[in-house]
């Protein structure tokens, strides 16, 4: 038996810094350790600040999912005040947030994930030339089309939120800008143009045709557009048998509208759906470079261990729900929401292909929702009301970022922030081990991955890690 230890990283084409240590025996990974080597200390900076400052500071945790952070902060402040956004304000927030999530999925697919299929290591495969033409990093035709389409659809966020990234418009009482009738028409035509992009480039068919696939076979057998190219590659490379998740899916539910969340909240495990009990969340610090005890985020603190002592190996805390690790993200969200093809795929456990398929499904479904939401905007309605915050209290803000469940927990004393904790999606997915020695989802997913003797940056490991779309700047914050 040959064993070796391998350090993979830094990973490029992920947001932020990431390193993974692998133990390899006889050509397969036997253990993996995910390290988030960047720490900024947002939770420490928030202490003593005016609660409203959370709206400006926390979105700056991440330049790619800043609206998710903004929406979570706003929801936490709203919960603190016991108020919800006005209905039209909630609708405008959902539009901005939905667009950001779709953009993140597109970026992941075109710029971060599929670029690996253009590698010379795959030369000779039947699809390789097409993958090179479409997905080569920075040059592929799909990469370029995606950058242009994203820039255009973000006009809508510009119209509603003033600027992207780091919009300021989302507030506990609504949004600061009431769109005009003209804005609504313009947003509608921008969405129509985006639909054309999706239908001619990504799906090669009407958005509805993809969104409404009913079976796992129809989804993984899709053969049109770039989605079809991906499915062809996935079948050839066995991406459906690679990078298995824990089989436990968490979603906080996406887009908090007056009628409820547009994608459902829940936990899916062993073929059954149960409600999310956020009271059962604990952040375990046993393998994080952090001082302190395991705690619920409403009581958690952040004291970095500057000596970086073993056995800790990451700045990332290890969140657990009822003592268990959870997979979160677009696939989890679609499974929890009950999409038939996603549920069918979840009968095996989640894998590299399923995670990418979940994003593609969500792009299609969100496009349909966005069109409906824009049509429902009422320019004459009120979009915001003043919300005054209590001097003492606590709040919980739960949203779904592109990469999964995002929560903000705030405590306020004497009108100042006395506690602020954030659990980001990648904190769940890339968590280190907990006190019981249980690995995080990515660490577990990597076990069994093939690593040939000659590989220093194994391709299977690249695919598995990237299938979770890590956002490392959010992970540790």
């Amino acid at each position, binding site marked *: 038996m040959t064993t070796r230890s391998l350090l993979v990283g830094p990973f490029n084409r992920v947001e932020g810094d990431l390193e993974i240590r692998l133990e390899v025996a006889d050509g397969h990974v036997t253990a993996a350790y995910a390290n988030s080597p960047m720490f900024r200390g947002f939770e420490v900076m928030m202490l003593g600040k005016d609660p409203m400052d959370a709206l400006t*500071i926390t979105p700056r945790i991440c*330049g790619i999912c800043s609206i998710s952070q903004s929406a979570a902060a706003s929801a936490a402040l709203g919960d603190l005040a016991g108020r919800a956004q006005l209905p039209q304000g909630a609708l405008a927030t959902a539009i901005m947030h939905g667009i950001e999530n779709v953009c993140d999925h597109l970026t992941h697919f075109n710029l971060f994930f599929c670029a690996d299929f253009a590698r010379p290591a795959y030369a000779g495969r039947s699809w390789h030339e097409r993958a090179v033409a479409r997905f080569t990093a920075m040059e592929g035709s799909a990469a370029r089309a995606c950058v242009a389409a994203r*820039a255009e659809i973000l006009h809508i966020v510009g119209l509603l939120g*003033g600027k992207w990234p780091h919009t300021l418009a989302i*507030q506990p009482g609504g949004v600061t*800008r009431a769109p005009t009738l003209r804005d609504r028409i313009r947003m509608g035509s921008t969405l129509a143009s985006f639909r054309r992009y999706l239908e001619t480039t990504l799906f090669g068919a009407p958005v509805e045709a993809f969104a409404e696939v009913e079976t796992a076979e129809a989804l993984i057998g899709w053969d049109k557009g770039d989605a079809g190219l991906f499915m062809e590659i996935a079948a050839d490379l066995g991406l459906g048998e690679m990078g298995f998740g824990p089989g436990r899916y968490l979603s906080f539910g996406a887009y908090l509208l007056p009628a409820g969340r547009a994608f459902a909240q829940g936990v899916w495990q062993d073929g059954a759906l149960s409600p999310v009990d956020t009271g059962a969340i604990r952040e375990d610090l046993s393998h994080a470079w952090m001082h302190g005890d395991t705690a619920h985020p409403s009581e958690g603190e952040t004291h970095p261990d500057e000596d970086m002592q073993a056995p800790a190996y990451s700045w990332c805390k290890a969140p657990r729900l009822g003592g268990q690790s959870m997979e979160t993200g677009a696939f989890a969200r679609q499974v929890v929401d009950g999409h038939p093809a996603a549920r069918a795929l979840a009968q095996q456990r989640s894998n590299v292909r399923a995670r990418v398929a979940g994003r593609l499904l969500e792009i299609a479904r969100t496009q349909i929702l966005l069109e409906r939401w824009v049509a429902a905007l009422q320019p004459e309605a009120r979009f915001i009301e003043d919300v005054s915050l209590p001097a003492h209290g606590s709040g919980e803000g739960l949203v779904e970022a592109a990469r999964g469940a995002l929560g903000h927990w705030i405590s306020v004393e004497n009108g100042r922030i006395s506690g602020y904790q954030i659990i980001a999606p990648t904190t769940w997915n890339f968590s280190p081990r907990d006190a019981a020695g249980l690995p995080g989802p990515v660490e577990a997913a990597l076990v069994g991955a093939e690593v040939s003797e000659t590989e220093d940056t194994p391709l299977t490991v*690249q695919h598995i890690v990237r299938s979770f779309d890590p956002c490392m700047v959010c992970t540790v914050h």
Partner: protein
Amino acid sequence: MADIETFYDVMRSQGITRRSFMKYCALTASALGLGPAFVPKIANAMETKPRTPVIWVHGLECTCCSESFIRSAHPLAKDVVLSMISLDYDDTLMAAAGHAAEAAMMDTIEKYKGNYILAVEGNPPLNEDGMFCISGGKPFVEKLKMAAKDAKAIISWGACASYGCVQAAKPNPTQATPVHKVITDKPIIKVPGCPPIAEVMTGVITYMLTFDRLPELDRQGRPAMFYGQRIHDKCYRRPHFDAGQFVEAWDDDGARKGYCLYKMGCKGPTTYNACSTVRWNEGVSFPIQSGHGCIGCSEDGFWDQGTFYDRVTDLTQFGVEKNADQIGMAAAGVVGGGVALHAAVSALKSAQSKAQTTPTPTNEEA
């Protein structure tokens, strides 16, 4: 890539037509405020001068600068991004991964010694020997120093690299430090903002690549062409400020009518940036247009000025023709050296330029 490869060669090899190229030159000239006579000069420069390589590194940051950059509406921006400058090394977008990527950076440094531009996004945290940001097994500060050593010039993208930004907010847990405090022997151009406007980023980099020199900088090291005026000076809500029509609460009638956001904490009067003219997301809007005040994200220390919704109280009403240097850092709400002198100058000028007595609104008005 031969050393004599020009920008034009690169653009041609990416399939950009001559017509698009000329259009690009014309638009660049106008974006930079240069006359039509500069178009052939820019074209000639692009055709004859060797391509300047760019190394783009990421420290402690949120990647918002890159995100802004890749959705620029600047002339053929996606081609600027994806081909013209041909980022020789970029953590976020490049194909290579792992140590091969690190090797690619070393190759570029070696090959273009003294000739490449180093673009820095984010900043190095210095606490605990830089352990809070490890890239390729080493503290980012070491990578930064190594990449800077042979650079021709450095661009500090965004508020992080320029000033520290929110991650340097009290108590600055990681001692996040702006680039110019670590690299002291190279020309550095600061392009602040969180993030900077895409068109400002492409404008700056285009200028540097085309003319092979830094654009004119203000005293803080920012390109004067984009940071020469306050948001307030060109704000479309300015008439409401002058008329004393203010939004008093998020949902009031004034908010609906688009009145001035000064009383809601807008920092436009003390912020130097091009948001109110260039605007965001391909010229669609900017924060004030979305009904929220400016937070002054392109100013040093904007993250630690009390809450973002406090009204600016140190404002004196200067004339619109002043720039940052004339008015001075004190008026810009920034504490720094030489404050007293410039404050005095500003006060004097404001007295000359406007007959009004100091209209500094106070809290009693609310």
